[in-house]
């Protein structure tokens, strides 16, 4: 209300109210509360779950049937799903055996790969957020570093492997380095964008409060850029998992990548297919984990 009512207007408003006919009240019967039985509610939950689960399950079933039909015929180069299941049943039911060397259950291969990814990705996250902050905050750092980053990030992950093998003279650190160098670029770039996009308002608040550099970094910058940082972290984890398989094929030893390569060399095509299923599932889980952490940390403001 920007213009207060004048007295005459107010008087008029009062008169209008008085002259209106007396309100006639009528008692409306309330509708009875609809009883929702437990069974109905359960079926409601069940319905929602079914809506999520049924369509992919159906599509999967159709795909398996088509695959089975195609590969059943004589002369097929790839085994049908039934053969895959029969061939790899031992690997599926006993993922924990360890007969020394690289003759181990799938659990050990996957866990070796995951450890490499965890280490490389953790290093990339720390270095990526730090460098991204630097590039996002300092005009001169951006001018100096950004062109170099833009060139380096286009180098395919595997192209770094020979160089890192030459530097480290050992497969393990080389694989970790490849993960690091693969995951770091999207983390740097997204962090820098997030820092650069911190609204001027937040900077003003920090200025009025006279926050020092550390307080500004911890209390304003990181939380404000968190949605962007997590976008980078999510792309990074996806790329790490993509790169590890290829890197392990080349460095050998225990790991899901070399397991696949070894299976190919021994013509165990079924084992390759089983490994691919595991790689896909674990990649999916890793992505969901980072997304869940992002939702938790940013209170749902990060895009899912």
């Amino acid at each position, binding site marked *: *209300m920007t213009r207060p009512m004048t007295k005459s207007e107010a008087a008029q408003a009062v008169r209008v109210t008085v002259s209106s006919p007396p309100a006639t009240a009528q008692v409306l019967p309330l509708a009875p509360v609809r009883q929702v039985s437990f069974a109905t509610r359960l079926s409601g939950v069940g319905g929602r779950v079914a809506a999520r689960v049924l369509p992919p399950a159906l599509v999967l079933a159709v795909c398996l049937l088509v695959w089975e039909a195609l590969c059943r015929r004589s002369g097929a180069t790839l085994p049908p799903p039934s053969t895959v299941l029969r061939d790899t049943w031992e690997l599926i039911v006993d993922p924990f055996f360890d007969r020394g060397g690289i003759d181990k259950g799938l659990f050990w291969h996957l866990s070796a790969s995951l450890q490499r990814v965890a280490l490389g990705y953790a290093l990339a996250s720390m270095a990526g957020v730090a460098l991204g902050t630097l590039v996002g905050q300092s005009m001169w750092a951006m001018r100096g570093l950004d062109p170099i980053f833009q060139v380096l990030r286009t180098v395919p992950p595997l192209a770094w492997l020979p160089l890192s093998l030459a530097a480290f003279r050992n497969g393990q650190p080389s694989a970790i380095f490849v993960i690091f160098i693969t995951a770091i670029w999207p983390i740097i770039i997204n962090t820098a964008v997030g820092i650069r996009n911190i609204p001027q308002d937040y900077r003003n608040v920090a200025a*009025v409060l006279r926050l020092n550099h550390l307080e500004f970094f911890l209390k304003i910058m990181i939380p404000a850029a968190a949605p962007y940082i997590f976008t980078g972290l999510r792309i990074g984890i996806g790329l790490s998992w993509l790169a590890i398989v290829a890197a392990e094929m080349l460095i050998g030893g225990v790991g899901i990548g070399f397991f696949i390569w070894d299976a190919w060399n021994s013509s165990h095509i079924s084992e390759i297919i089983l490994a691919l299923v595991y790689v896909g599932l674990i990649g999916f889980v890793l992505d969901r984990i980072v997304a869940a952490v992002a939702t938790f940390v940013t209170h749902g403001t990060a895009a899912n």
Partner: protein
Amino acid sequence: MTAYLQIDHVGKTFARGAQRTEVLCDITLTIEKGEYVSIIGHSGCGKSTLLNVVAGLTPATLGGVLLEGREVDEPGPDRAVVFQNHSLLPWLTVYDNVRLAVDKVFAARKSRLERHAWTMHNLDLVQMGHARDKRPAEISGGMKQRVGLARALAMEPKVLLLDEPFGALDALTRAHLQDSVMVLHQKLGNTVLMITHDVDEAVLLSDRIVMMTNGPSARIGEVLEVLLARPRQRLELAASPTYLKCRQRVLEFLYERHRFIEAA
């Protein structure tokens, strides 16, 4: 003679490459302790720039600002700002937004417990104690502005700077908040400098209204003393001849002598 807050021959020129735009020209204004001063003018006249100069967020090109006789050219909690768009940090709760300011300003002077009590005290002042655990996204625009006000008040500023604090609110919420600000000013006796483009708001709240000419090179066109007794009541004022005369003066200034000519 030293005034409480003195804006002394302030000029501001923005330079973009070779192009120079003079926004403010020779602004001189003194504000006494406890005074409520509004700055009114058409949009683009540099009101906000002036407020930012006082806040220390924008450096003045010429002249300077003195607070209790000392020059202030950097932002600080002694000149707390309530921003137009509330500027609450969305990842903090209502309580934590105010607490951040309290912790920073009173780190050495108050204990943990006192800081908590002071935070709650200021939230209660603006009637937002009930929403302490909500995040800014979960409360209405008027409530956000209240929290912004609580955050500024919690710094115990020497001057409270309000940058069109009610501009983004609907008329009813605005009236409600104006009443709250009036009550708080009465109670706490803050020195307030407020930017507004609402004539009624300026007359209702202020002791003095500073009218600015249109930019570029905006100056102080006229200063009007609002000689209305406090506490003021919105409805009683509607019939007060002094109120109407003040309103008339500001309207005449804004719409006759300094009509806003929009670039075609």
